[in-house]
């Protein structure tokens, strides 16, 4: 059981880590998609089927497309795709900060005794999720719907070019 988890974790972490270090943005994005798929696999392992498929549908299906389009829209030549190397100072400081956070977190996790609950995998059926979404969390569902609509409209407004700026934009 744990072996499967470790494999999933290693694949996910590896994909994510490599993605964060690659120079080629498209490769980074695609590897991140692999990492998201790994997260979805973790959800499957944990018995949250619906969440796993939702993760795939949203991240692998939709967010990835947005990312790829953004990458393609924000480059002017092929050379732009490989980003300029970052300053070593920032990288080192980033590693130090990230490592510190990681150390603290892992230390805390290991140090904290945790009572483990039920060993059989809890199941949550789609029906239960539906009932909860429409019942207990109906207000949240509506709010999230409004949020998504507004966010997407806002994204369109932000991303669509002003007509007046067109003359400047054409290289």
């Amino acid at each position, binding site marked *: 059981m744990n072996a499967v988890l470790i494999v999933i974790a290693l694949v996910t972490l590896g994909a994510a880590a490599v993605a964060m270090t690659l120079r080629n943005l498209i490769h980074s994005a695609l590897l991140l*998609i692999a990492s998201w798929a790994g997260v979805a696999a973790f959800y499957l392992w944990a018995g949250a*089927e*619906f969440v796993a*498929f939702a993760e*795939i*549908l949203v991240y692998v*299906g939709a967010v990835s497309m947005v990312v790829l389009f953004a990458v393609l829209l924000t480059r002017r030549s092929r050379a732009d795709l490989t980003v300029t190397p970052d300053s070593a100072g920032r990288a080192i400081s980033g590693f130090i900060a990230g490592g510190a956070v990681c150390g603290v977190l892992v230390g805390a996790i290991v140090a904290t005794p945790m009572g483990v609950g039920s060993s059989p995998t809890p199941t949550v059926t*789609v029906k239960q999720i539906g009932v909860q979404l429409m019942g207990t969390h109906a207000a949240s569902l509506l709010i999230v719907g409004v949020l998504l609509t507004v966010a997407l409209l806002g994204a369109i407004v932000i991303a669509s070019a002003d007509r007046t700026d067109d003359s400047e934009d054409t290289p």
Partner: protein
Amino acid sequence: MIAAATTDAFLERAPVLLRDAVTGFLPEPWRTLVNALIAVGLILGIFGTLFAFITLAERKILGRVQNRPGPNRAPIPFINKRFFGLSQPFADGVKSLTKEDIVPRDADKVLHYLAPVALLAFSILTFAVIPYGRNLVPVELDAAVLYFFAAGAATELAVFMAGWASRNKYSLLAAMRALAQLISYELPLLLSWVPVVLIAGTLSTTAIVDAQAGWKFGFIPHWHVFTPWGFAGFVIFMVAALAESNRSPFDTPEAESELIAGHLTEYSGFKYALFFMAEYFGMLALSGMAITLFLGGWRSPLPFLEFIPSYLWFGGKLLALIFGFIWIRATFPRLRIDQLTRFAWKFLVPLALINLGNTIVWSLMSNSSALMQLARWPVCAAIILVPFVVLGRKLSAGVAPRIYRYA
């Protein structure tokens, strides 16, 4: 797979019995694994063969529609008989395997290699949740429909990879167009099956098939397609499926006469064949899902025909739908990309949303008196027909037969 109920007819149980005969002696963890492998192997084998012969059938039918015989010359090796060109697919396979695989110099080699593989993998993944017969579901999932479309959505990624990895600006642009089309039609596709989930109250494919069991008056099956909302949903689903599987008349992504096959321009040999295969698999999977959602799955249309095994019914329906795909391809010319996206956003999406509302009306009227039961038919038919006519008018406004003034 679940062990077959013993009350079923022998033929009905035959596949499961056969499998159990093979794997029955294995100890438990291995047995599950081998069973799964058998299922995978069967799916790959059957659908691979089906793919091969569908390509042949497609070419033959296209030929017949155009009053020509279609491919009929490939002989069976060694006996040198033609049998109407039945061995054509194998010849094609050998050809594509032996053709030179050209990779452009500047291409992103890894992605160029990965794209067809990914596409095929995602297409095959979708086969996992379709119930092919009574007790013949490879994977029994609670959120099966969601899984199906999640896996289907991932194919867009492969299209992008193909276009981008080719390092060809036409490939890239065509891939963008293909993505625009796929995303546009994803929406009506998803919206068209939501009514089914609403009525059946489940996302599980087997449960959806079970929801369509039985006959009204003993001869009208309870299939979703025989309701106003179900028929509308089925039509929308099939139209969107045409576009999702890049089939004519929505085959703009690979329009060979205009775009030299779009994102596949730089692909040749077996990689191209893999794309081809993935597209046919996608079409088969979508047809299978359409059967499950709307056409009663593997259920027989009439009570006295139940003696025919369920998997044969599924196969028959699948072939009928595939024939529909081919027939449509033989009939309609290709749409322009702007017509295509406009059709999706201004016609299919609103219609699918209205159909969703229609379904709600239907289900609200269902648990009332007999009069309401009867009244919901014309009411729901009107709810979907009126927008259809109005939106159709709007869509085809200004379209008239072309006048050739100088010809």
